[in-house]
């Protein structure tokens, strides 16, 4: 079963959003265009549209998250859906209820969409594969595998600043090995036709055969950043120091931290992005994070619109207009 078949219906429309891989470029563009139309909504004083009124969306987070969960929650509320937040402590699943039990129980409560985050790669696929036909699954991050809504909001940010993706040089710096964000960004950039995607990291933070993802691999930040139009800095988890992957944050910053000085090597109009939350002085200098090139807060802003777009596109096909439903019934009788 391919991810593409699982994610789209027979008409090629979005059914689940699990990964960027296997989707058509047109679908990514549709998500971004829809998000653009929602940007207006969220800037109004009444920030709601009735698209998903009467629908129930469950934020099912098996991994701690504040930012992503909050933006999904806001997105759902602005679409007028009812939202249920369930933070499942890892210990609760140890008690014996399997993920499938959790899924079945929530389905029995007539929930329409699951937004799932879990530490195991493949969890969103697992939910999608076993969900009832009327249920949509949105991946809010699974292990090291994918975080497609984050990638899409990053693409929207890039598109709004750069107009398009042709000829763009995009560099992703940091812990590629453990990053679901990087995997999804790389897929999306390649699908949207970015000129060149580069990654910069020491060998310990790169997956084996990283080039098979469709990137040029650099180990030297100054070489990798040269003439880049977009610089994406990844968050460095503190636990990487414990796993013998890095000696110290100090050395990491010295070699891979983005400073104002290094930024001058990039293209003059380069933008600096970060999926957040940022570690000032570890992967990025405050001067850069808060500087003129930084679009980090814009990313957060677009995050809500992108999640509204994904939710409404994934659910829309299951909200047939009343006339259409009646017409269908007549056809069946006739």
């Amino acid at each position, binding site marked *: 079963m391919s991810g593409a078949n699982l994610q789209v219906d027979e008409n090629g429309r979005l059914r689940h959003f699990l990964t960027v891989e296997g989707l058509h470029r047109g679908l990514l563009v549709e998500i971004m265009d829809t998000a653009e139309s929602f940007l207006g909504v969220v800037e109004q004083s009444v920030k709601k549209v009735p698209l998903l009124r009467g629908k129930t969306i469950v934020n099912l987070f098996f991994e701690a998250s504040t930012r992503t969960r909050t933006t999904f929650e806001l997105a759902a509320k602005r679409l007028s859906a009812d939202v249920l937040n369930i933070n499942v402590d890892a210990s609760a699943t140890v008690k014996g209820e399997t993920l499938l039990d959790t899924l079945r129980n929530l389905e029995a409560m007539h929930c329409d969409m699951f937004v799932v985050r879990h530490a195991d790669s493949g969890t969103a696929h*697992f939910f999608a594969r076993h969900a009832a036909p009327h249920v949509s699954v949105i991946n809010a991050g*699974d292990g090291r595998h994918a975080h497609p809504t984050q990638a899409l909001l990053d693409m929207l940010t890039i598109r709004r600043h750069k107009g398009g993706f042709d000829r763009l040089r995009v560099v992703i710096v940091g812990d590629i090995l453990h990053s679901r964000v990087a995997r999804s960004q790389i897929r999306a950039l390649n699908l949207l036709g970015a000129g060149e995607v580069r990654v910069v990291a020491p060998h310990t933070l790169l997956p084996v055969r990283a080039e098979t993802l469709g990137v040029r691999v650099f180990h030297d930040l100054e070489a990798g950043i040269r003439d880049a139009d977009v610089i994406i800095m990844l968050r460095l988890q503190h636990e990487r120091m414990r796993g013998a992957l890095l000696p110290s944050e100090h050395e990491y910053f010295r070699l891979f931290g983005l400073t104002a000085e290094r930024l001058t090597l990039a293209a003059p109009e380069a933008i600096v992005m970060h999926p957040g939350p940022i570690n000032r002085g570890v992967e990025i200098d405050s001067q850069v994070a808060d500087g003129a090139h930084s679009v980090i807060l814009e990313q957060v802003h677009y995050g809500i619109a992108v999640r509204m777009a994904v939710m409404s596109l994934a659910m829309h096909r299951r909200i047939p207009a009343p006339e259409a439903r009646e017409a269908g019934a007549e056809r069946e009788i006739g």
Partner: protein
Amino acid sequence: MTGIERESETPATVIRGARVIDPADGVDGVHDLFLQNGCVAALDRAPPGFRAEVEIDARDRVACPGIVDLCARLREPGQEHKATIASETAAAVRAGITSVCCPPDTRPVIDTPAVVELIRRRAEQQGAARVFTVGALTQGLAGSQLTEMAALKAAGCVGVSNAPAPLASLLVLRRALEYAATFDLTVFLQAEEPSLQDGGCVHEGALATRLGLPGIPEAAETAALAAALALIEQTGVRAHFCRLSAARSVRMVARARHDGVPVSADVCAHQLFLTETDVAEFNALYHVRPPLRTRHDRDGLREGLAQGVLDAVCSDHQPHEADAKLAPFPATEPGISGLETLLPLTLRLVEEGVLDLPTAIARLTVDPARILGIPHGTLAPGAAADVCIFDPRRPWRLDADTLHSRGRNTPFLGWEFTGRVTHTLVGGRIVFEDRG
């Protein structure tokens, strides 16, 4: 299907007109095979006074020694919700397997003669095939304190192993090898360095990179193999490496053997066909340990098998209940229900020109029997009459309803095979006959 030990009561049987292939004896030709008192009596000419009570017409069929499977988990005692000795040995004989070797990770672990005895008795009462046991190398498989190996051997264990659990240190491995050597016990080793495995669940390669699944590097196997080989060479113990997965490991074993180190090795049947890319979109049926590696590795394993560096093909049978595979990929239990594809996949190697038929049969019969030190896997006169008869041309498809193991966890459902077992005899008695 009880009482496989009551061999004297078995009917005198003749298998007529089969292509008899017995690699142990260098036999390959059309013969009549006479079985009496549970043993092979003669080839071609009935022994004096022989009166056939059972006649099997085996024209256009192959008759070979019953298959000896080096590694099959029967899940009993302790995990009867997955399978039982009765259910799995019944599935085994339908697939031509007459001897299965059960690794020590039952619950409780096979670390005392009492557990060996329990399995032996249960197999005698309910088993359709012969069941052999490998005892634990350390108590509870916990990796630090040695088991009473002399007692385990006396109770009937054919070897000792700590697989799949890790040992506390190389010092424990060294002591365990030395102690096992004292009693001339074969040590079965799974080459897997736990620290390099590092929570991985697939081969560390392009697929792990694409799906973001934690990878197990090839070096987890080769580093453990190198360390074990050094200690085996020093202690002179007889050792067997189970379930090698990498082409480089095959070369290392070949080199060690060339240098006179007393080692043998096997490969599981699925490793000869599947590769990392089969995991596709997190398909847990392909979650196995060691992991499926690259096409290059698969080809290296095939070559090793053809050249005899890998002595045997085993099923690495691991039947699971459905729930064991119903979770996100890393959280699923590894393993394939493999008994019923052991012979079919090996025959497919013959079809694909990797092995000739007698070599393929040797890798399933006499070679694994030699590793276990058991007097089976041969049709030489006097040997126990464990026979597998199959129609080498009959096509069939592995479907849910043609699968007899309690474990339905196989990625080979829907595969088309050629060559179907029609009769299986254990100790001269027909324990399976395909009447379809």
